[in-house]
């Protein structure tokens, strides 16, 4: 069993199934500005934090001081470990004067001198640019041999986009590619582990961001589901927060299932969600993901129907994650929800709403898979999930525009408007409810000072009577 070193980049370690293998050689490839240097340094600092010794050899003209000055703004940077545990040296002069054989000797000498267990060689393309393919192959082979002999993990950085058949790619144990991609006006970063000898990987491209903490990688959440979905389900019912809806559903939502409320704008989807959240307690807390209304707006909306969200947040019964509409990474949002829910052992999760998640997706067809993965992780902790999704039809639609989302949830509620007696009225229909009998009749409701009320709107009745 080969020992592994964590890269210090959480999501990447997940993709690598536990980090880099000791004594193995890796190539990290990506265009300038992709984040290779930050990634390599994050690895070095993480490595020395866990007791290892790291060596960073650069073949670039850029000085280490400049690089360290940029890195010092990042949270993983720790000046005190340089140079005792983490050493920066340049191999540029040696390469210029003594060529690849000289560089090999230098690497051997430095790894030994510093007793390095992790080595980064930055700017491998410099070594490759002035030599034949055969010479370069020999260089990579020898370098790999030296690292392996010293039991040090070697990470080589290059900005060259060389084909997968290039000697360095066939020889190394691992190959990680960073990309900066553009779709329409939007640019986004991805990371892909193309090869990892002796280890499983989460295949494909995964989004990442460069933050003040360094690289943050968010594995595509659906790619992390392994094996058959767990069928473990908590028995029983979870109140919807509305007495009459609980009656219509035979006692509320089945425990640890996922429900979807479909409806046009303004019909009351968020209000249903607020009722659902109102049942949360510090012992059985809830998480809300808001993608439209800000927490302030939600609080006043809740206050207007007699619900005190502020107090629930203060008591620990409720945590609100607000992600205003912008170029969000949906995988980041999904992980934020799952991790927050896990950390507080949430029993209720409300996601308002699915359409905004879809709008943020580079590939919208991923949405059902993402929700399915979220459901699986949330089911593991016994949480019951409620999603809202907007539909365009004001009235009963002939076809549910479900985008396959309703397929992956257990329960579906449809809210519609009815036009009757010169007025728009609201109605709720239960479309499906997992393993449950339910009242299939459409039930009229209105939004009152206490929230959702299952009855015709008395004010509307008065207004109509006065008008007549």
């Amino acid at each position, binding site marked *: 069993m080969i020992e592994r070193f964590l890269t210090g980049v959480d999501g990447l370690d997940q993709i690598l199934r536990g980090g880099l293998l000791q004594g193995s050689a890796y190539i990290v490839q990506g265009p300038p500005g992709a984040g290779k240097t930050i990634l390599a340094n994050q690895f070095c600092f993480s490595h020395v934090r866990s007791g290892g010794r790291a060596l960073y050899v650069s073949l670039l003209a850029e*000085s280490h001081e400049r690089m360290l000055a940029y890195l010092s703004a990042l949270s993983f940077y720790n000046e005190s470990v340089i140079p005792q545990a983490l050493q920066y040296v340049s191999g540029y002069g040696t390469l210029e004067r003594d060529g690849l054989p000289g560089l090999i000797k230098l690497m051997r000498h430095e790894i030994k001198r510093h007793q390095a267990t992790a080595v980064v060689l930055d700017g491998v393309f410099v070594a490759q640019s002035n030599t034949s393919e055969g010479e370069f192959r020999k260089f990579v082979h020898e370098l790999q041999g030296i690292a392996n002999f010293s039991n040090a993990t070697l990470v080589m950085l290059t900005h060259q986009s060389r084909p997968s058949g290039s000697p360095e790619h066939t020889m190394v144990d691992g190959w990680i590619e960073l990309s900066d991609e553009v779709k329409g006006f939007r640019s986004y970063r991805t990371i892909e582990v193309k090869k990892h000898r002796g280890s499983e990987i989460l295949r494909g491209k995964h989004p990442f961001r460069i933050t003040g903490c360094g690289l943050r990688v968010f594995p595509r959440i659906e790619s992390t589901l392994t094996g058959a979905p767990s069928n473990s389900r908590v028995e029983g019912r979870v109140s919807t927060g509305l007495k009459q809806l609980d009656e219509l559903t035979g006692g509320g939502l089945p425990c640890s299932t996922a429900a979807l409320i479909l409806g046009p704008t303004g019909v009351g989807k968020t209000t249903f969600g607020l009722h659902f959240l109102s049942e949360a307690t510090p012992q059985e807390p809830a998480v809300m993901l808001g993608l439209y209304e800000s927490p302030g707006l939600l609080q006043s909306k809740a206050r207007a129907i007699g619900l005190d969200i502020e107090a629930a947040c203060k008591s620990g019964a409720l945590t609100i994650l607000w992600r205003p509409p912008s170029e969000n990474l949906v995988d980041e949002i999904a992980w934020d929800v799952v991790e927050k829910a896990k950390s507080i052992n949430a029993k209720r999760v409300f996601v308002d709403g699915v359409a905004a998640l879809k709008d943020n997706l580079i590939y919208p067809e991923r949405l059902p898979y993402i929700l399915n993965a979220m459901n699986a992780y949330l089911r593991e902790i016994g949480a019951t999930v409620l999603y809202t999704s907007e539909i365009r039809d004001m009235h009963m639609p002939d076809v549910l525009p479900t985008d396959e989302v309703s397929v992956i949830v257990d329960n579906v509620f449809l809210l519609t408007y009815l036009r009757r007696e010169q007025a728009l009225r609201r109605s709720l229909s239960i479309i499906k409810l997992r393993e449950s009998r339910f009242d299939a009749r459409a039930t009229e409701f209105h939004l009152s000072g206490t929230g959702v009320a299952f009855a015709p709107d008395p004010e509307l009745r008065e207004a109509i009577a006065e008008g007549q």
Partner: protein
Amino acid sequence: MLRILIVEDEALVALVTSLALEEAGHHVMEAINGEEGLKIARQEQPELIITDYMMPRMNGLEMIEKLREEGFEGPIVLASAIPEANLPIRPQYDAYLQKPYREQDLLGVMRRLFRES
């Protein structure tokens, strides 16, 4: 005119430092690591050594220690990105220059050194 030895593994830092010193009328010699610096210093007995700390083969502090042991008495400037307080050992150097330094910083240190001496 001084005969100055620059011991620096980073090509760009060595280049701009050499250019500045040559422009100021000095004769410059270069070494790309501590081991080479030691060899040139023994042979050439420079009137000033400006050395980096983190270098391959032999670091700047080790080189200074060896030179002093061998009786080299000329002024030595240690230039490093590592704060002086974090240096693991304190061999006998005459001035510390925090990297990245500018031309005036370097020339200022040299003026101070040679005024003192």
